[in-house]
């Protein structure tokens, strides 16, 4: 079955085609959901809603586009929309100030035995999940997805200064969480 036929079958509400589409993209899309969510349970709900959005927008797909790129882009926009729709979680946590650097100065100095780059991926994901929602969003978009700061600002609908500030604090928060993870917390 060609890609075009596969899309047409999905548009005609073919269950097998839809199931196949989900199965093909489940792995990395669920990994993405876990990075943006605060827990694995929330990641499941994000995934379901994002995939529903994909099926709703599937008629907008054009043959000239890469299907994987289009699905990833649509999935990401749906995730950001879901994050922002949860306003109490997204905006209230941004008020948390990162002023613990001096108090926990040991956290930011590593010993020879400690290497933050040798952790498991699940540990990094847990470190990300501990971060506030807005920090997590900015860090994921700019650092992991490697988006420009302007692109990130446009997607999150924030100005560049606040994005920079949030990114700095997010980096600090992630390092702290990784260090704590390394120490077994």
């Amino acid at each position: 079955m060609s890609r075009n036929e596969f899309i047409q079958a999905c548009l005609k509400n073919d269950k097998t085609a839809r199931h196949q589409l989900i199965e093909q993209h489940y792995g990395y899309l669920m990994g993405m959901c876990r990075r943006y969510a605060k827990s694995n349970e929330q990641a499941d709900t994000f995934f379901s809603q994002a995939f529903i959005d994909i099926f709703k927008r599937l008629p907008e797909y054009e043959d000239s586009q890469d299907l994987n790129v289009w699905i990833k882009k649509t999935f990401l926009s749906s995730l950001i929309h879901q994050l922002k729709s949860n306003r109490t979680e997204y905006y209230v946590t941004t008020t948390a100030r990162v002023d613990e650097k001096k108090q926990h100065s040991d956290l930011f100095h590593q010993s020879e035995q400690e290497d933050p780059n040798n952790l498991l991926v699940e540990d990094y994901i847990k470190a990300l999940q501990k971060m506030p929602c807005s920090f997590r969003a900015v860090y994921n978009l700019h650092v992991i997805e490697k988006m420009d700061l302007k692109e990130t600002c446009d997607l999150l609908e924030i100005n560049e200064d606040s994005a920079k500030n949030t990114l700095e604090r997010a980096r600090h928060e992630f390092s702290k969480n990784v260090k704590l993870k390394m120490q077994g917390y």
Partner: protein
Amino acid sequence: MEDKKPFHIDENALREKLLNYHVSFNPASLDFLENEIDHIKTSIPFKLPEIKKILQFSAVPVIIIAFGFVAYFGFNYIKDVSEKSAVKKDTVITTAPPPKPKVEIKNEEVKAPVVTTASVTPEAPKKDTIEPVATTTTVHKQTKETKKIGAEQVVTPKKEDTTQTTNLAGAKPDSIKKVAVDTASTSKSKDSTTKKKKKKKKNSDVTDDIRQSTQQPNSADDEVVVPNN
């Protein structure tokens, strides 16, 4: 002392790890998703063509055709207007003399009612003359039979009255005069007759009284009863 170097996370390595992170497929977790997706009915939306294409293939020819129509019909219209205006000017010249107002003279019609009124009127003033009054004075002295004669006398002076009525030029107060004069004369006659009747009655009453007095016994014949007191 333990050597401590700044805590640094290699973001590129982290990115690679996280982007290559895949979660193993769990079919059980898709039960909810499949139920939800069954309700979604995808339909191909109707896409409007781009504005450029619309302009190229439809708007430009339509505009050209519209301009052509406007130019053609506008020219014809101007032509018609100019022709009409020229025709109108000619007609104005031809119809320039204003129509003369028609004056109708109805002399004959005016004369007719005058004649009729004149012919009708003369009967009324017959009795208005002074002469009938003189006749009425005679009536006062005469009896009832003289009234008829008076009436006949009133009828006689017709020829004299016509001259008087012609001077009045068709006025109709004659009827009033007629009634007034007649009533006066008749009332006078009636008064005279009533007076005569009253006189007769008085005379008859006197005679009756005399008769009764003669028929009734005298007061001297009546017995006079004197009270004993």
